[in-house]
């Protein structure tokens, strides 16, 4: 556990404390205000417990543990995507290669192989999968099949793998202008902090959006795709997340307050865009959610929607600012 700075340990412990509080509140509510059906929220909190426990355990073992955790998440998300969208019977072998690509992609992330990490899916798989498809010799439905598969790989494997790379990317803190390295976070120890910052901002922006949307929401952003999302919620979510990022960023990451504000703002904005993308996808496939892997939440893809755009963007923001 020595590789985890104490700020990260405190953050993880306060997360568990928060979950325990949620459990207590729910228990009191069930005890004294019986009547309403709390099954969904109960399942939801239980799933959060499981996710937080597995994630913390993976981080405690080593940064590589986190890489394996996100590799598995990617595999599950890809499986959900391909199970729900129409695929061609002839493409079974191609799909097999798509699944296999999870392993090299996360291997490159874990070994800090920046070049290969960047090109493996957008260049190598981009060449190989359609090539394997024409080799099969079925022209019917080629466009749809190739498009669907490559997009599936981009959002479930390529995008999400940036979360894992955050863990292993060495930073050059001298590059960050005017930043004192007094917090005790140096070099590769900043990975867990950056990752937790990203996930925390993505999830809290969800909560802030929901809260402000409930309080002030009137006009819907996109009535036919996501009826629950309102402009008030969107703006409130972005503002509150940006403020929250300004507080949390300097504490657990090597970012200064300006960079934290920018990062929080970006994560909230593109997190929303990613979420709506998944909603549009579900609309098109005529499904309510992507499965039942996470009881109370639906599938894995329902949960990681706000990470699919924010993970690569935040990763490159950090890389641009703090990598030589």
């Amino acid at each position: 556990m020595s590789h985890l700075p104490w700020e990260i340990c405190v953050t993880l412990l306060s997360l568990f404390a928060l979950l325990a509080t949620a459990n207590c509140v729910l228990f009191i509510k069930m005890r004294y205000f019986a009547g309403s059906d709390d099954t969904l929220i109960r399942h939801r909190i239980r799933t959060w417990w499981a996710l937080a426990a597995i994630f913390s355990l993976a981080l405690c073992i080593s940064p590589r543990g986190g890489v394996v955790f996100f590799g598995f998440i990617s595999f599950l998300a890809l499986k959900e995507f391909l199970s729900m969208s129409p695929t061609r019977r002839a493409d079974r072998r191609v799909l097999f290669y798509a699944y296999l690509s999870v392993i090299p992609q996360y291997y490159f992330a874990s070994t800090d192989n920046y070049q290969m990490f960047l090109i493996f899916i957008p260049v190598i798989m981009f060449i190989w999968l359609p090539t394997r498809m024409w080799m099969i010799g079925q022209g019917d439905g080629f466009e749809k099949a190739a498009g669907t598969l490559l997009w599936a790989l981009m959002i479930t494997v390529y995008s999400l793998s940036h979360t894992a790379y955050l863990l292993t990317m060495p930073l050059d803190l001298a590059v960050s202008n005017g930043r004192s390295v007094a917090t005790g976070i140096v070099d590769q120890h900043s990975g867990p902090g950056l990752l937790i910052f990203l996930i925390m901002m993505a999830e809290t922006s969800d909560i802030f959006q929901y809260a402000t949307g409930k309080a002030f929401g009137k006009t819907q952003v996109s009535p036919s795709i996501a009826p629950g999302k309102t402009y008030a919620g969107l703006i409130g979510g972005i503002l509150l997340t940006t403020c929250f990022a300004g507080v949390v960023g300097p504490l657990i990451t090597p970012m200064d307050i300006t960079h934290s504000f920018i990062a929080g703002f970006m994560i909230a904005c593109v997190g929303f865009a990613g979420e709506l993308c998944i909603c549009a996808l579900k609309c098109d496939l005529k499904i309510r959610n992507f499965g039942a892997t996470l009881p109370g939440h639906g599938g894995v893809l329902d949960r990681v929607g706000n990470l699919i755009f924010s993970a690569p963007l935040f990763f490159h923001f950090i890389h641009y600012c703090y990598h030589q």
Partner: protein
Amino acid sequence: MNQLLRIAFFALIVRPLMMIVLGTNVRRSELLPTSGPAIIVANHNSHLDVFALMNVLGLKRLPIVRPVAAADYFMTRRLRCWFATRIVGIIPIDRSKIRRENGKHPLDPISEVLQEDGIVLLFPEGTRGEPEKMDEFQSGVAHIARRHPDIPITPVFMHGLGKALPKGEALLVPFFCDMFVGKPLNSQLKKRELMNQLNSSMDELAAELPMEAWN
């Protein structure tokens, strides 16, 4: 049956396979029979169907679960025969023998299991056939219902495993398996009415899926 080896196989191989590589989305698993005697009827796309169903039924019910399978396919090779009877615990029925032989009705082995409070799994399509396409159900289930009019018949619609491992393929590709459980059928009906009820129940369950052609 080798009960110990059977439990080990399902706990150590089938369960991780179903949980990690494939994955099942079950709707209304509470409608599955908790104890025998009972009959579960499902459509058939892949060899994996039986493992997925038995995995969902769980290790507790495993000792009493017996799938009905074709003797003319599973009993031909020695290793396959050993695996099918000892580990999976099939009730072998010969698809080509449809008349009484030596005073024994071909469905008698199923009746014996039901009398011992077993849960019988039945795939009335009779074959895996074209993956993810439902063939017409054979009426064997109606004959069993006539012999045991008080035993519930639970329909289960399965989708997805035909994509993971279709007939004639050896490469397993991960896909989620949907499993929709329906309300138990009225097993006291006559043959034709029972088959109608089964068919309409299956169609209803299949309609829960945003259907996609797979070709």
